[in-house]
């Protein structure tokens, strides 16, 4: 049977067909839908974890117990999970263990553009890279086989264009599995005391050499000879771009990109006149190939080290480097681009509970040490109310560091406040708060508890009282947790009430001890909360635009002939009736919906 599947759907299917018994993940674009699809396969036990490190550890445990198991995350998640990954490289596996890393060249929805292929070399584990959905499914099976055969975790790298592209896939079946009934103990294998780890390290080094041998015969690595004047070494989705751009060229298509098959590369070199390495981001393949002593005629001197490629850029850049045979269609001039158009960035939804908090923070002019979630949009106009945002969980530690070295001299605007979402707090904010309390900090932390992981599409988290598929679960009690960390001041505020929000934030900032403010209001998108729209009284509206500071897409300016005709209007379809804009109006021109008489 054939279907069109996204790369993420195909990996979920591949996990099922490979006999995976266990999968854990923390959401993150572009990886999220892998686990969201896996959960539909009932014979795979699957779960969200609070963060990627934990997801990796539970998956490793399942592997030690004999299950084929999978940990899934976006590229930056591997930074969080790096600690267990690097030593799992030493312990090896029992049931196959694969980590999927979903990289995001061009940063469509990420805070950096790191190339996680480097992790394979660093952690000394093999790396597979599919180039379409069919391969995403099939190569995942290969990943589990290699993991078991070579007793190693396997890194499986997808990118946004693989994960979120749909291509046709031939479906397979799942083998029948016996239940796991024996838990074998093997101290030297799994207990990485220095004495045991010292025995392991040489084996890890030998394993990479053995894998390099195997790479020579794996059919995911192959030479596709065409015109011998142009030889292209490539992998992943870039293979598809290069095939499109140079349909007649010769290719060395690599499915396993670490370790590399040296003999195959040398053979390819000897068959082609010019050899080009075409890859996005770092010169990962190029550096290793050059280290082998193989001559490369074009790599990062031809292609950019940042951003994505596409068929057009591959055609253009390689042609400029002297390679003949590009598809003429791709070299044609693009259509007439139109400059200077207004951008259309994402914005907080109408009715979003984060809006009021950022309206107030913007007014208070404090330094907002931010974090990652929908609320990061508070950095954008018109709020401009987030002044740092680095990685998940960083807000609290950074605010503490800032307050340790600055003297606010009693001024609110010289103070720093941390703002963090519920999912992010559970992910890695707790330890930052622990640090603040322990080291006599004085900063204030605002936890925006909207009862979901909204940014990535509304996943459950440890505070929502539900697990992956909505089944009831224990619910973390944030105030009790915070109290247990030693925080003495815990305040609450209604983020839809601007006066209260401002009062509470000012009050807590004024106190020289750590405090936590919890703004609890559910995400209107996730919980499908709909309120009747508010309206603008055109007689009362002066067109002062003060309400526009709440950055709501339902509000717009109706430009009239003269100054006095300029009015604000509310789109009744988009407005979600939160009333935040009305609290900004000094003329009481924004009116609540009139209740309909029953």
């Amino acid at each position, binding site marked *: 049977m054939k279907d069109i599947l996204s790369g993420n759907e195909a990996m979920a299917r591949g996990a099922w067909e490979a006999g995976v018994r266990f999968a854990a993940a923390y959401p993150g674009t572009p990886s999220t839908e892998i686990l969201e699809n896996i959960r539909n396969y009932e014979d795979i036990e699957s779960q969200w974890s609070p963060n990627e490190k934990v997801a990796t550890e539970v998956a490793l445990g399942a592997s030690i117990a004999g299950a084929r198991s999978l940990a899934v995350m976006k590229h930056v998640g591997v930074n969080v999970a790096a600690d267990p990954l690097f030593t799992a490289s030493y312990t090896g596996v029992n049931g196959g263990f694969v980590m999927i890393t979903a990289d995001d060249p061009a940063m469509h929805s990420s805070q950096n553009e790191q190339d996680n292929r480097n992790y394979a070399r660093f952690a000394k584990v093999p790396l597979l890279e599919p180039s379409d959905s069919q391969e995403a499914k099939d190569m995942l099976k290969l990943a589990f086989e290699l993991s078991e055969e070579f007793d190693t975790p396997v890194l499986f790298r997808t990118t946004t264009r693989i994960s*979120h592209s*749909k291509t046709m896939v031939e479906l397979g079946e799942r083998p029948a599995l016996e239940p796991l009934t024996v838990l074998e103990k093997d101290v030297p294998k799994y207990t990485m005391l220095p004495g045991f780890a010292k025995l392991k390290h040489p084996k890890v080094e030998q394993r990479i050499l053995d894998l390099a041998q195997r790479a020579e015969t794996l059919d995911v690595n192959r030479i596709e000879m065409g015109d011998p004047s142009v030889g292209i070494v490539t992998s992943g989705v870039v293979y598809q771009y290069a095939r499109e751009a140079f349909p007649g060229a010769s290719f060395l298509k690599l499915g396993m990109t670490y370790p590399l098959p040296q003999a195959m590369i040398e053979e390819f070199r000897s068959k082609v006149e010019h050899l080009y390495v075409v890859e996005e981001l770092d010169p990962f393949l190029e550096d290793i190939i050059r280290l082998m002593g193989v001559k490369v005629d074009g790599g990062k001197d031809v292609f950019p080290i940042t951003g994505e490629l596409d068929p057009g850029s591959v055609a253009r850049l390689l042609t400029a480097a002297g390679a003949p045979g590009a598809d003429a269609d791709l070299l044609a001039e693009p259509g007439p681009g139109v400059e200077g158009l207004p951008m*259309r960035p994402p914005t907080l939804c109408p009715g979003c509970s984060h809006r009021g908090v950022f309206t107030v923070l913007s007014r208070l002019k404090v330094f907002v040490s931010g974090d990652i979630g929908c609320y990061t949009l508070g950095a954008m106009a018109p709020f401009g109310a987030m002044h740092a945002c680095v990685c998940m969980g960083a807000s609290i530690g950074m605010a503490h560091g800032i307050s340790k070295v600055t003297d606010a001299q009693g001024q609110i605007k010289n103070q720093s406040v941390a703002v963090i979402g519920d999912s992010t707090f559970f992910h890695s904010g707790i330890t930052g708060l622990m640090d603040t309390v322990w080291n006599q900090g004085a900063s204030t932390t605002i936890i925006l508890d909207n009862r979901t992981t909204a940014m990535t599409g509304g996943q459950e988290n440890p505070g929502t009282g539900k697990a992956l598929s909505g089944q009831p679960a224990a619910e973390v009690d944030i105030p009790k947790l915070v109290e247990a960390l030693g925080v003495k001041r815990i305040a609450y505020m209604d983020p839809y009430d601007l006066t209260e929000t401002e009062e509470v934030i000012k009050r807590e900032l004024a106190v020289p001890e750590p405090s936590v403010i919890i703004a609890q209001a559910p995400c209107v998108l996730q919980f499908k909360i709909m309120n009747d729209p508010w309206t603008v009284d055109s007689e009362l509206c002066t067109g002062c635009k003060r309400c526009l500071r709440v950055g709501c897409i339902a509000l717009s300016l109706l430009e009239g002939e003269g100054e006095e005709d300029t009015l604000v209007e509310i789109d009744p379809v988009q407005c979600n009736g939160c009333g935040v804009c009305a609290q900004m109006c000094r003329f009481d021109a924004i009116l609540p919906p009139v209740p309909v008489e029953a």
Partner: protein
Amino acid sequence: MTENGTTTNILISGVGGQGVLLASYVLGQAAMKEGYEVKQSEVHGMSQRGGSVVSHLRFGERLASPIVTQGTADFLLSFEPLEALRFFNWLRPGALLIYNTLRVNPSTVAAGLATYPDDIHGRIAETWPNSRGIDATLLAEEAGTAKATNIVMLGSIAAELPFPLETWRDIISRVVPPKTVETNMKAFELGRAAAR
């Protein structure tokens, strides 16, 4: 179509929440049903929150890349005028642009920080004469619900594509709520008639 005439490249653009991804899903499934190889690519993530969304759809006998290169789109189907203008550099000479004339303000415009281009329909027609603006939302309302706007848009490009009506009906009835199939098919027909 490309020189060898075997590949059709379509770019579908709009605003998060307008149903761009569903429309490209229907197009892809229809092409697959007709026996073509299909590749489609989209970027989600932050696009959900009212940002620009674009989906690339390619079908033909044999294709490699899932994304469409600038200057090679045969069709641009846009759910909003500004989002049509934004992707003009994808059009190949002679390509057809079909767009929904209903304007949706970006947040930057709503906040008074930027202005929506003046006389956008004039500007589109002048820069790309082979364009057709249709009031898809009005037509969807005429069919029974504004929610069918994306189906009107599908109808508008249907006349240009080699898929029979039964194929469209089959796929559309798989993706819309069962009770709304007839409403949606009416929307589809209205779109088809409007773009002619």
